[in-house]
């Protein structure tokens, strides 16, 4: 692993940290993994941190007096602190462990939404949202009779901020949007969007599933109210995600799930809720996964988020340049300068599934479909696109193989 000071970013060394990258998909065919926006691969340190936890410290947490229980509790809460620090959250108790980004957003919809929203209230979303930041609001809108508005996406793949300003005049109670689109790669101008939302008194929620893994995120600086992300997209395990929340909001929100640990005192017909963050963590949490999440953050910090961002930029620029040479291929989203490491595209008359399938034949893993952003695809009148997405372990050679694979696709369908 490389230090994060002045040493060069050594991608071959990074690759050595990820066991799966040594895999041959078929005899003689290496893995070219370009599906990190769906889930990232895991470095051995993260895998090992969880194995070691199970082999040495495993116990249930919080209430146990014995040594293992104390060690497990410490490991779990230390992970919380690390992750809170990673996004520069004001305090660790404002970071709630959930299963994933999806559950984080649902938690806000159920707990905050059902307390503070009522018939006729407006929620402002965008046309580029992942289903995770759309369906929870559809559900609550149906229940409470709320109105959903959408900031349109321009043909270049950016949010139409003029329309945003108009929509703000309708006084939405909540503005919820993604930090970075998992299809277009667009990185939204959050700081400005949040400031504007606040100026009309709206609460803000940001889906950080694609941002926290890929570039430095500073919660305190963004002044966002809720921020959601998943471990599995940032070198961490499946089964755990996080929700950051503003303290006063979290403290005034009712519990979401009921059960052990989220209570202070229980009688047969009533209970007193625990303090945050425990109020929102009912039942035995994902303890080993929190340990793995913490190890993932350690790993990313050791590499350096700035350098990961820079490396991905380099790869993205190179990819976009090379794709210019593939005939009949159209890339979605803004130009390289405004884009994260996600490249979704379509080839005239060739279905995304066929593209992905033929690439897979050469060990190249990309995703095909609507990438859980069906309304965006509907808007662009595309049933499906193919998406290549990068991370710190990808190389120029990965991209070259990918481009060569696309040429082969065209040959087959010629």
């Amino acid at each position, binding site marked *: 692993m490389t230090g994060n000071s002045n040493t060069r970013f050594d991608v071959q060394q990074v690759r050595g940290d990820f066991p799966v990258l040594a895999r041959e998909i078929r005899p003689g065919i290496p893995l070219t993994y370009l599906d990190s926006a769906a889930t990232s691969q895991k470095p051995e340190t993260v895998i090992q941190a969880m194995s070691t936890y199970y082999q040495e410290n495993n116990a249930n947490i919080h209430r146990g007096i014995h040594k293992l229980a104390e060690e497990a509790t410490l490991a779990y809460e230390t992970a919380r602190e690390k992750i809170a620090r990673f996004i520069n959250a004001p305090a660790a108790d404002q970071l709630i462990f959930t299963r994933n980004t999806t559950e984080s957003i649902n938690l806000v919809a159920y707990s905050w939404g059902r307390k503070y929203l009522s018939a006729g209230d407006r929620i402002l979303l965008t046309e580029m949202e992942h289903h995770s930041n759309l369906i929870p609001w559809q559900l609550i809108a149906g229940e409470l009779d709320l109105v959903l508005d959408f900031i349109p996406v321009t043909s270049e793949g950016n949010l139409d901020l003029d329309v945003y300003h108009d929509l703000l005049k309708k006084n939405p109670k909540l503005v919820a949007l993604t930090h970075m689109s998992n299809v277009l790669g667009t990185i939204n101008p959050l700081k400005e969007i949040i400031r504007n939302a606040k100026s009309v008194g709206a609460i803000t929620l940001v889906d950080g599933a694609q941002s926290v893994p890929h570039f430095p995120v500073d919660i305190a600086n963004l002044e966002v109210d809720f921020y959601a992300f998943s471990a599995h997209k940032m070198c961490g395990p499946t089964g755990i995600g996080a929700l950051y929340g503003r303290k006063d909001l979290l403290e005034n929100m009712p519990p979401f799930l009921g059960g052990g640990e989220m209570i202070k005192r229980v009688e047969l017909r009533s209970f007193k809720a625990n303090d945050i963050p425990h109020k929102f963590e009912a039942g035995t949490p994902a303890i080993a996964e929190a340990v793995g999440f913490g190890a993932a953050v350690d790993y990313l910090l050791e590499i350096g988020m700035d350098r990961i961002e820079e490396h991905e930029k380099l790869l993205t620029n190179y990819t976009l340049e090379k794709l210019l040479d593939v005939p009949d291929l159209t890339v979605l989203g803004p130009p390289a300068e405004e884009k994260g490491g996600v490249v979704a595209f379509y080839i005239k008359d*060739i*279905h*995304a*599934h*066929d593209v992905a*399938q*033929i690439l*897979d*034949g*050469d060990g190249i893993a990309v995703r*095909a*479909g*609507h990438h859980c952003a*069906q309304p965006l*695809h509907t808007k662009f009148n595309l*049933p*499906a696109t193919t998406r290549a997405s990068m991370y710190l372990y990808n190389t120029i050679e990965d991209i070259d193989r990918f481009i060569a694979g696309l040429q*082969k696709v065209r040959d*087959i*369908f010629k």
Partner: protein
Amino acid sequence: MEDFYRELIIERYKSPHFRGELEPNDISFEDDNPACGDHIRIDVRLDENHVVTEAVFSGEGCAISLASADLLLESIIGKTIEELKETTKEDILDMLGIELGPVRLKCALLPLKVLKAGVYGVGETISSD
């Protein structure tokens, strides 16, 4: 892996023999594959003995699902409704002549699913797992 895309599949995808719509028709049904947004409609005409005289498909999809549709319809012309009901997943895979993972299997079986739903009525599905 190119043999995955057997010439037959690419050819049927690019130049289908049974593409179109029939109005009026005796059976018409459509459905999606939510995994990819594919959408297929199948229209069928029968004679007085419930034998398929004409069958066409329309919609959008990948090479696998559209070739599958084209080959399926070819295979049912001249069959009775009862015979048609007996078409299986294996028949489709035999016609395509390739092995498929779970996601692509859904693509390949979408036309059969649409056809059977049209014949049996809404709600009947075939297992693709």
